[in-house]
Structures are given as C-alpha cells and as structure tokens.
C-alpha cells in the first residue's frame, strides 16, 4: 500500500480502518425500547456488514452516560446486546463513542486485537437534556447556577457575533444547509426546511439548536489485511488525536478552538487537503468556530450527512461523524475525510480523525 507523503507526526504502528458503520433512525422518543433494545439492531447490522459474529470480535468498547438514563452503571445493561458471555474483552467510556473508538484504536495498535466493535447510544427523551448537561460543569463555581447547554452555546455565539465572525443570518444559513443536506439521510431527525424559530437563548434561535433525540451507532475497526478481508474499500485512520481546554469558560477565547486545531495538527489534517468534513457542531455557531480552527476552505463538503443539527443523539453523535466520514470513503464518494467529535460546554474537548481510502 502506498503511504502518504512525509508527515510531521509519527505514523501509526499498524494500519487501522473503519470497515463497517450502522446507526439507528434518530427519533424524539423511543420509550417503547430499553437502551439495549434500541441498540441491538445496530449491532446486528454492523456485524452483518462484515460477516463477523460477536465471538469473532477482539475488543469491544462503548460510550454512553448514566446521567441520560438517571441510573448508575447503566451501560452494563446494554452489554447484553453484545453477547458478553462467555467473557469478552470490553471497556467503556463515560463519553461520546468517538472516544470509545479512540480507545479501541489504541488497543488495535498494541496488536492485542485485530478487530474491534465500538458502539454508543443515548436516550435524551427520559430527562431534560438542557438540565442534565449542567452536571458536567465545574461543580464549585458554575454548576450551582444551572447554566444550561443552550445558554452556554449562546454566550459563545454572541462572542462570535461581537468578533465579527458571524451574524444571525449566517447562523441560520448554517442550519438550513445542514438540514437540506440531511434530506438524503434517512436516519436524520430533522430534515429539509426547518423554521429559524424563536430565540431559545438569544442570539440562538431554536433553529440554531440540535434536535433532542434518542439513537445509537456502531462501528467496526480492523487492522491491516483483516480490514481488506472485511471491506472492499476500508476507511484507513491516518491520524487521530484529542485535546481538551481549561474548564473555566472565562479563561478561554470562545471564538476559537485551539484544542481542535492541535488535535487536527497531530492527526495530520494540515498535510493535505480533505474533500469531506463531518463536524460535530450541535449548534450552528460552533460550525463557525470549527471551520476557522480547521482552516476548511469552500471546497470541502461540510456535513453532507446533515451533522448534529439534523440528529444529535447525545453520546453517539460524535461516533456518527466518524461513521459518516468512513461511509463516504467506503462508497467511493471521498478519498480523504475529516471527522470531528466534541464534548463539554462550548467545544471544550475535541477529537479529530483523518480517514483515507486506498489510492484509486
């Protein structure tokens, strides 16, 4: 296989690729289903794409959070869906599944496994997601004020407007473009024409905010020749990195995302242009920040899936960005794609992966 031109960051020890991806149809509620009932069809689909059985998988890693379910160790219930008996090699992150994928990638790098199943799920419908997400904030100075996720995003949006980086019509255009793109995405929750709506927290309108919904996603990773056996055109992970910024919102420059830029640099993004970018930007204003941090030009197809403005199952939306980018490569619609995932308020933590198909 031809390797890319010299790179600043050291190349991975093994070639690892996304070979399969599946996701649910994301919906406002799915209360007729438990988490594992929602997740299982996705696990079956992703296994069917490769012909693998659960017993063939070398490592399994998942992402979810107890705060959505309101129950401790809620992820253990979902393990029934992967057939965890006889015992499997398994791990979990209390984060978006994109970070579970990072853990699985490092596991494959060690050579301990050749295949990995990564899944993530979140049901936002049982609780109030705006309130639930306040529990991830600094517990001393911030969480006691209960600033909700929309309010914090709105502070960032106003900072961008003040800096001249965007304005309300431009934000509306981001939302419209995303949801128009989602017309072709049968899994998306909001598609086509969606009104700008009233202010949720000014300057953000309801149209600038992601839909609240339930959903799940799963990815299979494979190393080296195993990836070629399982997939006609694997989406090779050329680089992946994640970075975090200070938790103090007033310490950060909210109009920029240095953590995204650094992660992108370490993932090798800036060595050659990408044709596709799947950005995890739940709020329209966050796409403005990410485009700047990632130096994306007009030639890049940003969020052809519709992105998180079309479907935002919390804890799965970041993994879906990787899956969507990989699917574009697997279908031959992209040769080099960027996938991004975020977590925390105002893009506090960011993960960037660069995916490539074999040269054609």
């Amino acid at each position, binding site marked *: 296989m031809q390797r890319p031109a010299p790179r600043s960051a050291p190349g991975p020890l093994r070639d690892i690729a996304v070979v399969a991806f599946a996701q649910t149809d994301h919906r406002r509620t799915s*209360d*007729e*289903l*438990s*988490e*594992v*009932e929602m997740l*299982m069809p996705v*696990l*079956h689909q992703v296994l069917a794409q490769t012909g693998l059985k*659960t017993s063939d998988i070398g490592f399994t890693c998942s992402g979810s959070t107890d*705060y959505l*379910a*309101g129950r401790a160790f809620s992820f253990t219930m979902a*393990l*029934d*869906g*992967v*057939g*965890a*008996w*006889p015992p499997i090699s398994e791990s979990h992150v209390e984060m978006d599944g994109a970070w579970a994928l990072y853990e699985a990638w490092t596991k494959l790098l060690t050579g301990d496994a050749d295949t990995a199943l990564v899944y993530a799920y979140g049901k936002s*419908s*049982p*609780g*109030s997601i*705006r*309130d*639930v997400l*306040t*529990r991830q904030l600094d*517990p*001393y*100075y*911030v*969480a*006691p*004020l*209960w*600033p*909700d996720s929309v*309010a*914090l995003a*709105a*502070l*960032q949006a*106003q*900072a961008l407007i*003040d800096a001249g980086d965007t304005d309300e019509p431009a934000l509306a255009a981001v939302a419209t473009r995303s949801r128009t793109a989602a017309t072709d995405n049968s899994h998306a929750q909001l598609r086509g024409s969606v009104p700008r709506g009233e*202010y949720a*927290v*000014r*300057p*953000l309108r309801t149209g600038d905010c992601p839909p609240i919904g339930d959903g799940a996603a799963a990815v299979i990773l494979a190393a080296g020749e195993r990836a070629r056996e399982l997939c006609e055109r694997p989406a090779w992970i050329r680089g992946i990195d994640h970075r975090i910024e*200070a938790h*103090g*919102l*007033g*310490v950060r420059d*909210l109009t920029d995302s240095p953590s995204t830029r650094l992660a992108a640099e370490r993932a090798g993004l800036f060595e050659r242009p990408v044709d596709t970018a799947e950005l995890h930007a739940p709020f329209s204003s966050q796409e403005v920040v990410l485009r700047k941090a990632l130096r994306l030009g007009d030639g890049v197809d940003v969020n052809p899936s519709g992105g998180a403005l079309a479907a935002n199952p919390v804890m799965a939306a970041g993994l879906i960005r990787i899956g969507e980018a990989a699917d574009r490569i697997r279908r031959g619609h992209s040769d080099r794609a960027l996938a991004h995932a975020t977590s925390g308020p105002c893009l506090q933590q960011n993960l960037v992966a660069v995916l490539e198909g074999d040269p054609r």
Partner: protein
Amino acid sequence: MPEVLKAPLVVEFPFTRSLGPVQSAFLTGLRERVVFGVRTGDGRVLVPPVEYDPVTSEELSELVEVAATGTVTTWAWNHEPRRGQPLDRPFAWVLVRLDGADTALLHALDAPGGPDSVHTGMRVRVRWAAERSGGITDLACFEPHDDGISELTGSDGRFEDLVTGIVVPARLDYTYSPGRAQTAYIQALAERRVVGERCPSCRKVYVPPRGACPTCGVATSERVEVGPRGTVTTYCIVNIKAKNLDIEVPYVYAHIALDGADLALHGRIGGIPYDQVRMGLRVEPVWADGGGHPDHYRPTGEPDADYETYKELV
C-alpha cells in the same frame, strides 16, 4: 402489544464537596462581600480563582482582591429561566471580567431594561445576596453600573471561620420507561405470574427478561411463563438489619431457579427457620398484596431437587 410502562424517576442528592485553600478563600470572601482572584506566575489574575495555572499547571496560592465592578465580555438573553438558575425573571447570562482580573466569571445579569439594554462591554457590579453562606450564589447576580470602579475592601483573605466545603443540592427529573421486555415482565407480576423470554438461538429462558440474550447478543421475544415453583440453588444468611427494612434478622436470601427458567433470580426465603434452608429446597412464591414481586418464597414440602437437575444454574 400493551402500552409500555412509564413512571417518574427523580435523582436528587446533596452534592457535598470539600474545598482547597484557594477555593475556600474565594467562597469565604464572597460570604464577606469581597472578591478574590489568584495571581499566576506571569502576573495574570484569574477570577474565579483556580488552584493550578490552566496554562503551566503550576500550583497557585497568591490571593489578590479584585473590584466588585467589571465589564461584560459576552452575554446571552435568557427569557425563560429554568429551575435552579439565579433569577426567576428574564435575565442575561454574562461572562464578566471584574476590574483587576484577566479572566471572566460566569453569572447572571439582572437587566430590567431587557435584552436591548445589554451589550458586550457594558459596565456591571456585583449584587450581593442578603444571606450568604460561602457559595457562588452569595453573589446573587450582577446589575448595570455606570459609576466607575468600586473600591477594594483591603482584605488580605485571612478570615476566621473559613468555608471549607459546599453542599449543592442537585435534582434531575426523568420519566423512566423500562422498555418492551421489562414492561411485559412487570405487567405479568401484577397478575401473579412470572414470565421470561426464550432466546431464539440458544433456547435458554431468561428471567427477568431484558429483551436480549447476553450469551448470543440477539433479541429475545418468545414469552414463556415460568414457575411458580422453583429450587434454591444457593443462599446466604443475612445477619445485619438494613435501614428501613421491616424484616427480622437473621433471614435467608437465595437464588431461586424457577421451573422452566435457565437463570436463577433472587428472593427471600420465609416459612422455615433460617438454619434449615438448603440448596435444592423446593419453594413457591408468596405474593404480597398490591402486585409486584413475590414478598418471599416458602417451602412447598416436596422432596429436595436432585443436584444434577440444577447444577448448571448455581
């Protein structure tokens, strides 16, 4: 299919945290109506103060008083305050850089003039809560202020009776739904029946059913009534009385393989002295009034089950 069950679920607890020296000084200061920042190695003043420099990770301890007036660095208009937020009327979320500080503090701005009266760069001052106990809410909110920079108190940050911890009540409300399989299980219990589900692949019957076979990782759907009688596969004798539990100790807690089930579930054994319970004992449920799980299981009087018949379920 019957409608899926739903019930309110409240997760509520007093979030109790201890404070380090810097946070302790800051929150004690708020109680005494004085705001402290912390100075970094390169001379910046961080407000709210943190114990480690976010850039260099150097430990920080030099307290610096800053003014109770400052400048809005960004804002957002919140026309529908939510539970727990600082004001119960429309207000602006603001990041405020207090005079003398290099970073901004998140809080609420009481702006009776509405969103059109708020702008980045506007001058504000602290409004103190009438009753203060050492918490970020001792700072009730900010209010517009055009009158220059407030005077410092001159406090050195050494207070008697330091605040060393905070208790922050947290409450989240959910509507819990157990999903399809567990709904069917609970509804059957109301009719004093126990139902499991059979795996289409390995044919094992799981009870309580959760909709998936943990061995095969496939959906279970074929409903199977099990019991009511069963066999004690293993047990323990409980000698410590749990709080609010209306059961005399010692009592026996056992795993019980209901007839037709391929998995033991757990329950209390009654109707027999605790020291006569044994593996293989045949038991049947005693239902409580008002539905739900059996209150306990009692001996049926049958001969004990042969170990070979339940050894796979121990």
